[in-house]
C-alpha cells in the first residue's frame, strides 16, 4: 500500500492530508492548525497530528509534497508545488467533474480552469491589492463583532442588501460603520458584503471560460451565505466538498502518490527539482 502526504501552508491556517492507495485512493487522515508566526513549526505540527490521526509513523509516509505560501519552509517535504496546481488536482478528485475551481484565500482569490485529468488549463488571481479576498469577510465580521461562522447565515436573512462602494479589506470598516450609523440592519450589511465579494469573484472568474462543474475550495466554502451569493451571481450550482478546506493539501498528497507510482513518468517534476535545487 502506498502512503503519501500533502501539506498546505497557508497564510492563516496550515492543513495536512495523508492519502493511501490500496487499489483505491482515499484520504486516511486530515489535520488543521493555525499557521501563526512560526511557519516551519506549523507545518510539522499539522503533519505530526495527521500521522497520529492515521496511526502512522512519519517514516511510513513515502512522499510529502508541500504547497501554499509557506511551501518552501517545509523542511521534511520532498518537493513543493503551487497551491494553484494542487487545488485543481484536489478539486477534480474530491468533486469529480470539476472544470472550474473558485478559491477565496486570505490574501489571494483565484479561479482555475481544470482539465479532465485535473490539470490547470488556465488560472487568474486577484489584482495587486487584496480587495475582495476571503480576508474581506473576516474583517467585516470583526467590525460587526460577529464570529466568522455566523456571518454567512446572517447574510442570508438580508431584506435589502446595501451597496458596498469598496471591497478594500481595510476600508470596509468605515463603510460598514457609515451604514450602521444610517441604521441599516446587520443582515442587510452582511448581505451587501457577501454580494459585493461574490460579484468581485465572478468578474475575476469571467477572465476564464467558466465551465460547469464549478467547485468552491478553501475555508470560505464553509460559509453557506458566500456559496449562495456566488450561485446567485453565477446562476449555477456550486459543488462544495466537506473537505473543501483540505483540497490544496489533498491535491498535494495526490501528486505525492503519483510520485510514488514508478509507472508515472511526468516531467512536471523537472521544474521543481530546479526549485528544490534553489531552496
Amino acid at each position, binding site marked *: 500500500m502506498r502512503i503519501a502526504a500533502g501539506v498546505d501552508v497557508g497564510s492563516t491556517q496550515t492543513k495536512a492530508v495523508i492519502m493511501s492507495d490500496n487499489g483505491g485512493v482515499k484520504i486516511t487522515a486530515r489535520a488543521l492548525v493555525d499557521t501563526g508566526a512560526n511557519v516551519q513549526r506549523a507545518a510539522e505540527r499539522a503533519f505530526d497530528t495527521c500521522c497520529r490521526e492515521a496511526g502512522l509513523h512519519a517514516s511510513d509516509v513515502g512522499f510529502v509534497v508541500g504547497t501554499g*505560501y509557506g511551501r518552501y519552509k517545509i523542511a521534511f517535504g520532498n518537493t513543493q*508545488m*503551487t*497551491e*494553484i*496546481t494542487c487545488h485543481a488536482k484536489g478539486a477534480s478528485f474530491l468533486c469529480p467533474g470539476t472544470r472550474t475551481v473558485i478559491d477565496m484565500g486570505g*490574501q*489571494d482569490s483565484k479561479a482555475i480552469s481544470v*482539465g479532465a*485529468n485535473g*490539470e*490547470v*488549463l*488556465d*488560472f*487568474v*488571481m486577484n*489584482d*495587486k491589492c487584496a480587495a475582495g479576498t476571503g480576508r474581506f469577510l473576516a474583517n467585516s465580521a470583526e467590525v460587526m463583532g460577529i464570529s466568522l461562522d455566523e456571518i454567512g447565515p446572517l447574510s442570508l436573512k438580508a431584506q435589502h442588501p446595501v451597496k458596498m462602494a469598496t471591497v478594500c479589506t481595510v476600508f470596509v470598516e468605515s463603510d460598514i460603520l457609515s451604514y450602521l450609523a444610517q441604521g441599516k440592519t446587520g443582515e442587510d450589511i452582511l448581505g451587501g458584503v457577501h454580494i459585493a465579494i461574490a460579484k468581485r469573484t465572478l468578474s475575476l472568474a469571467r*477572465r*476564464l*471560460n467558466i465551465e460547469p462543474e464549478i467547485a468552491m475550495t478553501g475555508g470560505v466554502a464553509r460559509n453557506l451565505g458566500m456559496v449562495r451569493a456566488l450561485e446567485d451571481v453565477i446562476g449555477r450550482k456550486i459543488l462544495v466538498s466537506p473537505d473543501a478546506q483540505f483540497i490544496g493539501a489533498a491535491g498535494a498528497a495526490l501528486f505525492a502518490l503519483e510520485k510514488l507510482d514508478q509507472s508515472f513518468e*511526468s*516531467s*512536471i517534476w*523537472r*521544474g521543481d527539482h*530546479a*526549485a528544490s*535545487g*534553489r531552496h
Partner: protein
Amino acid sequence: MTDKKEYRGSIHQRQKDLMLSWYDQLEQAANTGNPPTIAMLISGNCVELLEGFGAVPLYPEINALQLAIRHQSLDPILAAEDLGYAADNCAYVKADIGCILKGITPTGGKLPTPTLILCNFVGCNTYLKWFEHLAKLQKAHLYVIDVPFMRADEPSRSDVEYVVKQLQETVKKLEQLTGRKFDYDKFRQAVEYSSRTEELWSRIKHLARRSPSPFDAYFDAITLMGPLYVYRAKPEGVEFFEAALAELQTKADGGKGVYEQEHFRLVMEGPPPYPYFRTFRDMFAKWQACAVASTYSTVGGLWEFGFRHDPASPFESVAMHMIAHNVTNRNFLQRYEQIRRYVEDWNADGVIIHFVKSCRLFSAGQGDMRDYFTKQLGVPTLYIESDLEDPRYFAEAQTKNRIDAFFESLEHAKTTVLSRA
C-alpha cells in the same frame, strides 16, 4: 539547476563603455555648454535629426531605469510625491523630477540643462505632462512634435506632412537655440547609419526564432537598447551591432542557447520591473524559460517587420518612424497583432503580460488583450502586475507563485499531451 544565464559576450563590455562615454559627453555639456543637448523620449525618438546639429540626446527614461535597477529609485520618487505627485502618477516622471530636485544622476556626474526639451509625443500623454513639468522646473525651452496617433492601419498623407512640417520647425528652433546651421548632409548620413543599424538589430531579433534562441529577447535585449537609442545614427552604433550580430550568430550556429536546455519559449508584453530586474529574471530562469520576442524592445522602433529609415527621403522616413513604426504610437489592436505574429513566427509556448501601474499606455486594457489571446487564440497567457520604477508595487511571493503555477500548468499540459499520445 538554477540558470542565471544572461548574454555576457564581449559586446556586453562595449555596451557599458558606449553608455559611459555618452554620460561623459553629457557631463562635458553640463560643464562647457558644448555640445548642445536635447532632452527627448525613447519612444519614436528622432535622434537622427540631432546629428544635423552635432547635438547629444538626453533620455530621462534611461536615467530613471538605471536608478531603479540600482535600487535607488524610491528616494527621488518620494521627493516628487512631497511636491504633490500622486501615488498613481507615472513613477518614471516622479523619479526623474525627484532626481532634478535632489541633484541625483545615475553616474554621480553632472547632467546638463538641455538646450531644448523636445517632446516627441508618440501616443504617451504622460510624455506631454512630463516634459511640460520639466520645462517649468528647469526653465528650459520646450517644443512638442505632435505625432498623429495610428487610428488606421496606415498613416495618412496629411499625418506625414504634419510631422514633416513640425520637424522642419524643430530644425529652425534648434538653429536659433544652438546658433548652429543645420547640416542636412550630416542628417542624411545619420539616417543612412540608422538604416544599417536597424538592419543589424532586426537580424539579431530574427536569430531568436532559432531554437534554442541565442539570447533572451526581453532581458538581454534591454542591454542592447541603450546603444540603439543613443548611437543608432552613428558609425559607433553600426559597429556595435555588427559585433553583436556576429557574436550571437556564432552562438546560434553552435546551437548554444540561453540555458543548457531551452524549456519554454515566451513572448513578453510590457516593460520589466526594473527595481526587481534580477529577481524577476531568476523567476523565469528557474524554469529555463526564454523570451524569444518582446514588445518593450520595440518602443524605440519596430524594425523586425521590415521598416528602415531611408536616406533617399530623410524627413519623410523620420516622420514615418515616429508615426507608424514604434510600439507606443501604434494602436492597441496593432499591438495584439504584433504579439500574435511573434507567437506564430517566433514559435512561442505562451505570452506573459506584465501590467505596470506607472504606464497606462502599455497597461490599460491588457485584460482585454489577455481575453483575446486565451479565448480567441487559445494561447496560454499569464497576467501579472507590478511597476517599472516604483519598488513598492512588487509583491515577490505572489509574483513567484503565479509564475511557478503558470509553468507548472504548461508543463502539465505537455505531459498530458505526451501521455495521451
